């Protein structure tokens, strides 16, 4: 367990508060994923992390089919699964970038949208197992009380990328 410096009472600045929030969220995300019992629990962990820590109730997990150059919808929450059943990698240049291992966030790329067919996507998070990308998590809209994904969320996405492999390939992760 990581030891955290205790800040006992007193006012703290915004930056310190944000750092503490991020630490707590990243810790919770990592522990939840590492302690997930099986594939179903890992998927539930992803949903909990997205909804409760990041503020998104619209999320999809895709499994990569390298031969066909496609990402098949493996599991989703809060979106129409028929609408997003498959992502054609050859038609989605930013998805191709993500499959090289890069986490992509809305408003941090030159493009105005992360997926061609919708402007609802806030992040593309490659799922890696031992360095190999095996799938993709797509974070769609965030809750109305939250403008966009912030620095803490970006750290959480890093944890998802490194630790969510069991959700797709439980025997390898």
């Amino acid at each position, binding site marked *: 367990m990581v030891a955290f*410096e205790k*800040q*006992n009472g007193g006012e703290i600045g915004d930056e310190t*508060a944000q750092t503490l929030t991020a630490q707590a969220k990243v810790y919770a995300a990592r522990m939840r994923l590492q302690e997930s019992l099986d594939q179903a629990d890992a998927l539930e962990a992803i949903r909990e992390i997205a909804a409760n*820590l990041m503020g998104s109730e619209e999320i999809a997990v895709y499994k990569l089919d390298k031969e066909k150059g496609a990402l098949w919808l493996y599991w989703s929450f809060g979106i129409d699964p028929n609408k997003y059943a498959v992502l054609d990698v050859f038609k989605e240049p930013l998805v191709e970038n993500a499959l090289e291992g890069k986490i992509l966030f809305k408003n941090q790329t030159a493009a105005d949208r992360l997926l061609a067919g919708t402007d609802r996507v806030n992040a593309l998070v490659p799922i890696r197992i031992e360095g190999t990308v095996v799938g993709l998590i797509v974070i769609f809209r965030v809750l*109305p009380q939250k403008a966009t994904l912030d620095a803490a969320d970006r750290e959480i996405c890093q944890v998802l990328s490194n630790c969510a492999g069991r959700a797709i390939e439980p025997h390898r992760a």
Partner: protein
Amino acid sequence: MAKKVLLVDDSTTTLMMEEMILKQRTKYETVTAKDGLDAIARAVEQNPDLVLMDVVMPRMNGFEACKRMRSQESLRNTPIILVTTRGEEEYVEAGYQSGCNDYITKPINSRELVTLLQSYLGE
């Protein structure tokens, strides 16, 4: 003696995060429950100084659990703060109708949470 906070949520992730924040920033003791029914039992058993409770939970939601806690003599005046993803007026109103004292929306911010709890419990 340290103030005791009952944290109620069906999400293990949220409970971990809330415990971590309160451990980092306060001297409050924490106990946890996983749903509304469990929360009522734990509250009667532990007599917390404050209850921080999610709304959407299996078996019994936060609104119902709040109403039932208010019917218990020992919990009638215990501050209850509901945690919701919905900040809309009707949802907030439902929370107050159930007897809660305050609410906070997810995703939780450390500073906002601690400030809110300290306003009821002190430092």
